[in-house]
């Protein structure tokens, strides 16, 4: 008898060791006794809270430091042009005479400012309608599966490095323009076409997000009033998402304004006021990338480039400000 009992014990122990049998003794659930002491003392959780708060706070401090020092550095060098090299700021903004090696009377950035704005505005103006149409197709008309496919295509386009776009522009667009319009083929038109392809996916994916944010109930209730799909899109959906679509376009413009490499490869890099769309020209960014290796730190030509960088920084601040402004208006 006792041998059998031992046997059974062995079997059970073996099974427990191999975890074949759950060795948890089940009790009826009931409230545990309250430990009054614990209620007034810090525990592991409260320490975790401190740590979590502290870590995120540190990260924030780091970012703020970074931003402040970037603005400070760019500002210091950018403003040196005006304060220590005595370039007139009005002259800088209104003259097209750009040859900083010749002294302070030859630091006029107007040609680059105008070119930068032209390529940005034209590419955004062409890209926006296309992007909105593509986004509308993806959210309102296509099936879920093809929308997913299109979405991954646009994401792929966003991810292609800008040098690839520039290279494509250089080998395809520039020769084509040369053949059609004559001249060198470099210029605003080539830059605009390259930027159009680059900002299209940006504006498209942000517009898709904007359209997806429109509640389905609005589509349904418009349909229930006998409106067609197109009437619903035109009068309700676009209306409801106007501010977010504008934001998408501004993000696209910010990308176009800040794009350096691809533009530098196709714009011709001659600091001249563009007199037509196919004359070689230069943007703020393209001038920065093409000239930064040719100047000595601390000299006027170098400081003049920093002034261009400062201008770009201010523009991106302006774009950000616009986005916030539109977002606020959209909420009203």
């Amino acid at each position: 008898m006792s041998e059998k009992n031992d046997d059974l014990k062995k079997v059970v122990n073996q099974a427990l060791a191999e975890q074949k049998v759950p060795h948890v003794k089940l009790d009826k659930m009931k409230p545990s006794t309250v430990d009054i002491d614990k209620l007034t003392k810090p525990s592991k959780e409260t320490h975790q809270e401190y740590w979590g708060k502290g870590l995120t706070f540190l990260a924030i401090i780091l970012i703020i430091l970074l931003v402040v020092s970037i603005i400070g550095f760019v500002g210091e060098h950018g403003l040196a042009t005006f304060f220590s090299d005595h370039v007139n700021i009005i002259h800088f903004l209104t003259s097209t005479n750009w040859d900083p090696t010749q002294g302070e009377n030859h630091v006029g950035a107007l040609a680059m400012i105008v070119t930068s704005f032209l390529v940005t505005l034209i590419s955004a103006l062409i890209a926006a309608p296309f992007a909105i149409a593509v986004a509308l197709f993806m959210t309102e008309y296509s099936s879920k599966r093809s929308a997913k496919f299109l979405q991954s295509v646009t994401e792929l386009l966003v991810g292609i490095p800008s040098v690839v776009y520039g290279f494509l522009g250089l080998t395809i667009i520039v020769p084509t323009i040369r053949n059609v319009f004559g001249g060198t083929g470099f210029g605003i038109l080539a830059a605009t076409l390259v930027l159009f392809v680059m900002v299209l996916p940006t504006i498209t994916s942000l517009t898709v997000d904007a359209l997806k944010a429109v509640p389905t109930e609005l589509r349904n209730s418009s349909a229930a009033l006998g409106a067609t799909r197109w009437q619903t899109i035109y009068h309700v959906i676009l209306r409801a998402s106007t501010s977010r679509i504008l934001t998408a376009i501004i993000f696209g413009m910010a990308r176009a304004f800040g794009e350096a490499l691809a533009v530098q490869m196709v714009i011709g890099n001659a600091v001249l006021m563009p007199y037509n769309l196919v004359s070689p020209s230069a943007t703020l960014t393209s001038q920065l990338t093409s000239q930064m290796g040719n100047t000595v730190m601390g000299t006027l030509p170098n400081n003049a480039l920093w002034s261009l960088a400062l201008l770009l920084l201010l523009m991106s601040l302006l774009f950000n400000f616009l986005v916030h402004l539109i977002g606020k208006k959209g909420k009203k």
Partner: protein
Amino acid sequence: MDDLKKEPTYIKTFSSDELALSTKNLSVLYGGTIQKLFNVSLGFKKNAITALIGASGSGKSTFLRSLNRMNDKVATVKGNIIFHGLDVNKPNINVYELRKNIGMVFQKPNPFPKSIRENITYTLKADGQKDKQKLDQIVEESLRAAALWDEVKDKLDKSALALSGGQQQRLCIARAIALKPEILLLDEPASALDPVSTAKLEDTLKQLRSRYTMVMVTHNMQQASRISEYTAFFHLGHVLEYDVTSNVFTNPKGRITEKYIQGSFG
């Protein structure tokens, strides 16, 4: 299911000149296989409010949405929907015109992000109505009919989103009746509203019932008994009982209906 077969059912019928809308053997399938509605045949009397009651998932909202073809791309709807002698559940029906005759108001108040005026004129304008005087007239008429005119007449060009939930829902009714439909489908129109707004909405519906045929889905049985003349009880995709509201509530024929009305489930 076997329980349902043994359950006594009662479906009231109307003579054809009393009918505004009727269905014959209406079945709804989702994804081709999941059946949510089984051969429902109901007739709705002209200028009366009919309440559709039943537990969640009983198919009453599915049924309602089928009536003006809002289920077109969502589900397969089989059977006939007879409107003015015409089967409107056929592919050759112009759904846009149909929905102008059979309007719908949804559960959540959902005005368009436009002004109050534009909420009402939007579909009229899209339809080609350009006469400003005529549009103004329709705006006032429909807002008055929805008992909202006095509250909003001074702010017609303000955003409709600034209105309270109850006012928004009455605006949704106003913009539906601006198209002069014969029938209004109401999908739990008061479920997102507080009691005071609900009372106002119910008053509005009562005022409208002499001119419109209304079919209303509701979870609120007091509401059904307060404002509807007829009540249909849905259970698991079948209609078990359809009669004068007072009969359904005081003298239900079936056991399941009785249990639901007493609040034993649902």
